[in-house]
């Protein structure tokens, strides 16, 4: 599991790659928080999920945790390009009502 970033003005993209479950969540959390802490002035943070090959409810907990952190910084969080199975997990969990999909 790894994360790469792209910054354009005050927009920050995080590109997640790999499988997001109990085994990888702690590593993902550290990697994402390190990037978020480097860019506290980002007003829009977009998590691109096109490289996520598997995600379960542990991934939902991870995303909601980052949403709270970004909110504390005064930013907004969005989700982008989940595959069909991640999209189903996100829809069933009602995540899009908190973190909109672009």
């Amino acid at each position, binding site marked *: 599991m790894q994360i790469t970033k792209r910054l354009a003005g005050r927009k920050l993209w995080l590109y997640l790659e790999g499988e997001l479950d109990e085994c990888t969540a702690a590593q993902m959390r550290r990697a994402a928080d390190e990037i978020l802490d480097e860019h506290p002035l980002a007003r829009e943070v977009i998590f691109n999920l096109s490289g996520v090959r598997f995600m379960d409810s542990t991934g939902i907990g991870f995303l909601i945790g980052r949403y709270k952190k970004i909110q504390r910084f005064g930013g907004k969080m969005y989700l982008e390009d989940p595959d069909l199975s991640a999209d189903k997990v996100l829809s*069933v969990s009602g995540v899009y009502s908190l973190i909109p999909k672009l």
Partner: protein
Amino acid sequence: MVNHMRLECDAVSENEVFARNAVALFALPLEPDLAELSDIKTAVSEAVTNCIVHAYRGQGGTIGIECAIEKRTLHIKISDKGRGIPDVEAALRPFFTTLPGEERSGMGFTIMQTFMSGFKVESALDKGTVVSMSKAIGAGKKENA
């Protein structure tokens, strides 16, 4: 014909990927489509996470995984010998979690129920929990044919 498999693994998160893929591979003779395979893998991952995080609280233990294929249905039983669930009815509610400080979504059981066609939880305090799930493979295809 009924086909069975049974395996045991340690309750460590490294075994999640093994558990969900082992069950998915066992289901392959039913020729599930990608969406059905993904549903099965997600439901198994949720049940196994519960064993590791809740039943054994990260202290280790053994997870039992039993599967059977009967006609077009895959049956899965995931069991632990952990602490058990004090209130199963509460645990089944969406967003319910006993670990609110750990970024838990409380959606594990809801996802299992939504993604599988059959679902049941039996639990006894300090004895363990058994989650039984089933999925009829190709059910949607027949309806659309």
